[in-house]
């Protein structure tokens, strides 16, 4: 019944921030239509893309996401009239900032997926998952997080070995 699952060495964690009116319904449509897409994606529902704060994206990367997807209604279709227009400007600026700080923008995808576009949802999720899989784990933010938990300097070989074993 299900397509044969391919075993991969690395399964990326992808976090999707979606708007409830369009993309969430679109993802739901993909599910009820029994379309197959990678189970790597974790969907988080928001009222609107305008509600999605850049901090959420940072937080996702810090806490272990390898890729982040932000998706909402097509321009002009926003349930709240202008939420996605504002989000579009905000994320354009945020992308530039992340790029300047040295984050690979290939891990961050934005898309418009309407409630009728189950197929596009599958396509977007599959493409992002495969791209991130190819890139390997998102090390940058995770390293920072690990350093955060590590309270001493690595002054002895034993400490160094212990540190290496957790990374």
């Amino acid at each position, binding site marked *: 019944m299900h397509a044969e699952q391919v075993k991969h060495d690395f399964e990326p964690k992808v976090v999707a921030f979606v708007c409830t009116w369009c993309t969430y319904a679109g993802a739901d449509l993909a599910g009820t239509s029994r379309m197959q897409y990678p189970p790597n994606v974790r969907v988080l529902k928001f009222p609107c893309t305008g509600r999605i*704060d*850049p*901090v959420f994206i*940072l*937080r996702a990367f*810090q806490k272990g996401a390898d890729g982040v997807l932000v998706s909402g209604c097509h*321009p*002009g279709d926003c349930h709240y009239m*202008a939420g996605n*227009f*504002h989000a*579009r*400007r*905000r*994320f*354009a*600026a*945020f*992308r*530039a*900032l*992340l*790029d*300047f*700080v*040295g*984050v*690979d923008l290939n891990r961050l*995808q*934005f*898309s*418009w997926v309407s409630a009728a576009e189950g197929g596009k949802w599958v396509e*977007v999720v599959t493409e992002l998952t495969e791209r991130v899989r190819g890139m390997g784990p998102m090390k*940058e*933010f995770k390293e*920072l*997080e690990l*350093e*955060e938990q590590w309270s001493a300097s690595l002054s002895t070989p034993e400490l160094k070995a212990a540190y290496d074993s957790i990374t």
Partner: protein
Amino acid sequence: MNAKAQKAKGCGIEPAYYDAVTQAIRSEAVKVLKEGAVSAVIGYLPGRRKSAAVPAVVTTEEEAGRLIFSPACVNNLSLYLTKAKKGILPGGKIGIVAKGCDLRALAGLMGESQIKRDDLFIIGINCAGVQGAVAAGNGQLTEASIAKKCRECTAHTPEGVDFVAGTLPHLDGLTPLEAEELARIEAMPQAERWAYWKEQFSRCIRCMACRQVCPFCYCEQCLCDKNRPQAVESSPRPAGNTAWHIVRAMHLAGRCAGCAECERSCPMDIPLNLLNRRMAQELKELYDYEASMAPQEKGPLNQYKEDDDQSFIK
């Protein structure tokens, strides 16, 4: 040009220029206080140490007669008008001494409905520049001591003010060090940029001086102070530091006036203004927005056009 020749060139700002500005500020401040046009003037008084200056709120004519303007008058005084610093000003109309960059901050605060133009009496300064954070020398403005932001200042002459103090002396063109640094970082490969900022942010001690000194960080509760849910870790460790600086730059995008107070007040010498400038540059390119001395009704991220660029969205 080699370093030595650059140093020898100097800025050539005569002390007489500062004396003239000081006199103009004093007489105007005394006048408006005497007339009762304002209840207080925010300006600079001489500091305790030689050739230092401190921000001050003066309410009497005697005090106003001691106001100064010198290369040490670095602070952006518009900070004291925000609700983050409420309670330090008496009610009524307030006079404020403002350099060009401070004026842009005032205009930004007016655009965000934080202050009203009618409540202010602005004493604008024809500003030749001020000192950098670690000023060398004897309180004179030289090429070695001038602040980086002043090297490529576009706001020497105040606009839309009630009184203009001083006349602008001849200014030598200086090399735009900050723009060069920005271009250098942008030209780096992405991994190298990450390493650069990781190193810079790792020094951060989270003293929050950059937030406290910023006229636009006037939120009564900062997102970064909140826990439950916590957005940004509050201890001075790598992950929280990086998140804090990214969030700070993002919250100031399209609002920052470019006064570079954050960078000046940073005790760890983190080049914060580079982040601000990069965002300003991006918003100029994308939405043709620039901080100006005239209040603008809406910032670039508070408005939209239906045909904004969306080439990055699938």
